């Protein structure tokens, strides 16, 4: 049985229209690594799609799984959580906690029928500006391919 994506479920087939679908993605970036990388990418004038809206947190371990669910509920098509590489967390072990929490959340999301690619974790150190730009493009493209999530129509009780 072919998998029915959330986009196919939704009635609005925006993809058929002339304008390409521009996904809305929320990015939770840790201040010490990934946010610094975004800063550096900016000063280095790297180009990447503007679809990811960044929310700065001190550490990805501040990201309550509830925030991610709320982001989806309020209309985000994808969520990116980016922090320091394992072993390089400014707060010793915050990224390990995040990895554990996101792992559990992903299971819940898959049970709801939300595709794996809509929630992504990445470890980007402050110096990895090219990786940062690459991740930004990649996450945008992947979510664009999945189409809009349309939480209200697909997941909220009518």
């Amino acid at each position, binding site marked *: 049985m072919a998998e029915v994506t959330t986009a196919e479920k939704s009635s609005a087939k925006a993809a058929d229209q002339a304008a390409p679908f521009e996904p*809305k993605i*929320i990015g939770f970036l840790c201040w*010490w*690594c990934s946010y*610094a990388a975004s*800063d*550096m990418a900016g*000063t280095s004038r790297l180009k990447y799609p503007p679809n990811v*809206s960044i*929310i700065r*947190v*001190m*550490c990805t*371990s*501040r*990201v*309550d*799984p*509830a*925030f991610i669910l*709320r*982001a989806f509920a*309020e*209309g*985000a098509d994808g969520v990116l959580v980016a922090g320091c590489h394992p*072993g*390089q967390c*400014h*707060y*010793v*072990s*915050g990224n390990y*906690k995040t990895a554990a*929490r996101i792992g559990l959340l992903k299971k819940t999301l898959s049970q709801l029928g939300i595709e794996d690619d809509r929630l992504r974790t990445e470890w980007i*150190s*402050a*110096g*990895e*500006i*090219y990786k940062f730009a690459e991740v930004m493009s990649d996450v945008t493209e992947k979510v664009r391919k999945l189409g809009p999530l349309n939480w209200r129509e697909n997941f909220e009780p009518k």
Partner: protein
Amino acid sequence: MAEAEEQMVKLTIDGIEVEARSSETILEVAQRLKIDIPTLCFYRFVKPYGACRMCSVEVTIHGKSRFVPACSYQVRDGIEVQTRSEGVINHRRMLLELMLARHSQVPVIRELAREYGVDTTRFEEMPSEGCILCGLCVRVCSEIVGANALTFVKRGTDRYVSTPFEGESDTCIACGACAYVCPTNYVKVEDVRSRKYVFSELALGPTTPIHIPFAAAIPGIPYIDAQTCIHMQTGGCGICSIVCEPDAVDYEMQDSFEEMEVGGIILATGYKTFDPARAKQLGYGKFDNVITSLEFEHLSHASGPTEGKFVRADGTEPKSVAILHCVGSRDKNFNEYCSRVCCMYSLKMAHLIREKVPDAEIYELYIDMRCPGSGYEEFYNRLLEEGVHFIRGKGVEVSDRPSNPWAKPIAGGTAEKNGQLFVRCEDTLLGVPRELPVDMVILSVGIEPAEGVEGVARVFKISSKADGFFMERHPKLAPVDTLSDGIFVAGCAQSPKDIPDSVAQGAAAASAAMSLIDAGEVTLEPITSVVDEDVCTGCKTCLLVCPFGAIARDEEKRVAVINDALCKGCGCCVAACPSGAITQRGFDDIQIEAELAALLTS
């Protein structure tokens, strides 16, 4: 005996009355008085031997006089010593006559004989090979070095010094002490294998195990290389501790770890040079006459292995030299960044070579000349006028044979000779490939982050850039700060830079650190977490997740309490709190949800 040694005695030497310790010898007292007594078999640090008798002096005691060797005769109370009486002179002349009979070819003996007016000998001549049998080498080897590799063989006129069974000694450690003390230079240490200059080995020049690392080292204190020190390796020698008057030599010293409390840390971990063996096509390590810029620096230095003479591995002077820029830098195979210092030091090398070998052909093979800096462009112009050939094109290959062996040597190129090298490059200004026959190739190696900087970055929780250098807080506005408070960077730890830039950044980092310390207090970020005591159930989940131990449980109120000074504000307890009792200032749920709403409804 010890008490007897402390006794002071009075004696006269050449009419001078002196006081001396009874443990001293006449020679020691005389040397203190700057009275010259000739010696051959005497050396301060080995026991007196009294073999050569050249130091004989006339001692009068209780009205009787006799000749004694000054080196081994301990002074006594009331003795009268004559070092240059007629009897002494005659005695020495006789000794010299005897020695001339055997050692007339030894310069030291001839010199002494001339001094005492002895030209000929009345005795039957039995020329020796130059050894005067003073026994210094034997004694030094056993007493100081402790190797016992030398010994006297046979007796009487057949006596000579040799290694046991006259073979290559097993116990000899080739320290050279015997050759050093030999008064006639008869003992020589020879390398039994034929060797060439090995630039990497000789990089700092031959040196003794105890030495000051280099001429301008800070601190300028000698250190002992435990790997080559005879004392450290065999327990012998120890001469440095004997000669050091303030008694500063300590063989027991060990590496130690010290803990210091500081208010700021400056990371200036420096750099290492690119290992050109990684670029196999350049022949480093394969051809003897391909050296790095740093090896050239040692070679051209006045205190280097060749005392500043610029030579090839076989000791001949190179007549043509190619300097290859950007080795390991601006190269996608190795490091993409520019190492910044190589253009200038390559120019300096060309200038030094021009000075040492005025008629040498010098080629600079560059991609771009990067000479920004005070006076740098002027120096480049000067080099252009010094007749250095600048070829715009990277040296791509170094070979020991020409690409076309039948082609006639290029005009100006030397005929094929031992160690001739061929450098291939593309002259991008002429648009032709070129091949330069040269005698020597110098690789201008680039700068890389120092060994182990990843570990340093992890310890201080700072970030590194993609190329491995430490990342500053902001490339323009905070060039010496890092993302960790109180940690600063300076010099090549941050990026390749030359000495003026490193000095400037070092000074900037020092003042940044000082201003932090001087303030006397640290401003904490106002982003710590707080517990709502009315909601907290005291479940201790937050205690488990806090990496800093900043949360404790108030047993009386049965709630969690956060220590503001310890809390670093990561907020992981906020996300973990099952009852939602903890909020992070500046990052509370309402604020983040408001951000979400604002971003998603726009």
